[in-house]
């Protein structure tokens, strides 16, 4: 039985005993000449492709970084927008005339003009046109500067001029007027003589 199997294998061996034609290797050389092996040398196809992808990724990352980190970007603008400008001087520290002037200055400011610009441009605008921390009329700026200098030198005591809680007169708010809503009566629509069709 084993002999029979070996005979069969011999038969198969004989059937497959072919040699490639003399020009076969030359054909293969010709065919492979055009296909450069990947990774051979520096600029193999695969490596070139990887380097291209890496370079592309770096460019995209750089563009994203510039867009996101510049002052007018959404992230920076949202931080600025949430932080409202806080006046350094409170109502207690400034004279009444200065407070009124400050309020007037605020009211005189132009309201932002609504245009069709993009949100990014608008937020950039908010950053560049930043509101000053203290609103002081120009004619009183010199006096305020002297006051601040005096405070820093110790010649002026702001605490001495601060009013206490006892000085404040609390005026009760008027009671809200009752609101009456009249009953709404809906009259039925007149039906035409012929009836609904």
């Amino acid at each position, binding site marked *: *039985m084993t002999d*029979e*199997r070996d005979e*069969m*294998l011999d*038969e*198969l*061996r004989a*059937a*497959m*005993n*072919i*040699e*490639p*034609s003399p020009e*076969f*290797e030359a*054909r*293969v*050389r010709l*065919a*492979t000449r055009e*296909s450069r*092996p*990947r*990774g*051979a*040398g*520096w600029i*193999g*196809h*695969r490596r070139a492709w990887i380097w291209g992808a890496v370079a592309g990724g770096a460019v995209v990352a750089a563009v994203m970084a510039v867009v996101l980190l510049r002052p007018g970007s959404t992230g920076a603008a949202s931080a600025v927008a949430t932080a409202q400008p806080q006046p350094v001087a409170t109502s207690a520290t400034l004279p009444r005339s200065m407070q009124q002037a400050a309020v007037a200055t605020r009211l005189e400011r132009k309201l932002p003009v609504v245009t069709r610009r993009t949100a990014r441009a608008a937020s950039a605008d908010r950053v560049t046109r930043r509101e000053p921390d203290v609103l002081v009329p120009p004619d009183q700026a010199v006096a305020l500067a002297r006051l601040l200098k005096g405070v820093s030198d110790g010649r002026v005591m702001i605490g001495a001029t601060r009013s206490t809680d006892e000085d404040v007169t609390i005026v009760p708010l008027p009671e809200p007027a009752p609101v009456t809503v009249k009953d709404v009566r809906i009259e039925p629509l007149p039906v035409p003589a012929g009836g609904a069709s």
Partner: protein
Amino acid sequence: MDGYAERLVGRLVTADEETAREFESRLVESSTLAVRVAYSVVRNRSDAEDIAQDAFVRAHRAFARLRERDRFRAWLVRMTFRIALDWKRGHRRRDAREDAVARLRPPIVDAERELIDSDRSMRLWTAIDALPEKLRVVIVLAAIEGHGMKDVAALLGIPEGTVKSRLFDAKRRLQERLR
């Protein structure tokens, strides 16, 4: 700078030459193997050479990871076998169509075809075709001159014991079929 560029170019050229030399040696020592493996599936010398050439071209593209001799031969055998099976599947459908037309024409006498079509040989190949793929590749590789169990195991990347059992199984099935 010029000196550096020259050295760089020199290195690249040397690397390319070395790669070409290595591939050339792989081609010379493995061309018969690839053609025979392809022939075991398609049974036509010209088609077998086309398939083997295709496998070599693919091997050339992936030569960076196939430089080791054993790895190259194992990869080449598997790739050739795979391409040959695909080729045969595609041509089986085409042959069926062509056979219908050929019945209308007078028969062409071809010495090689006549030899293959001898009864015993034809039955043997039919029996081999009917084997499962994993048994078929083992018996084909074992039948190729000079391949022992160890060689077949290395070419297929499987243990020698597995090769023995598969070869035994393949022979048994062929014997039953040829009886």
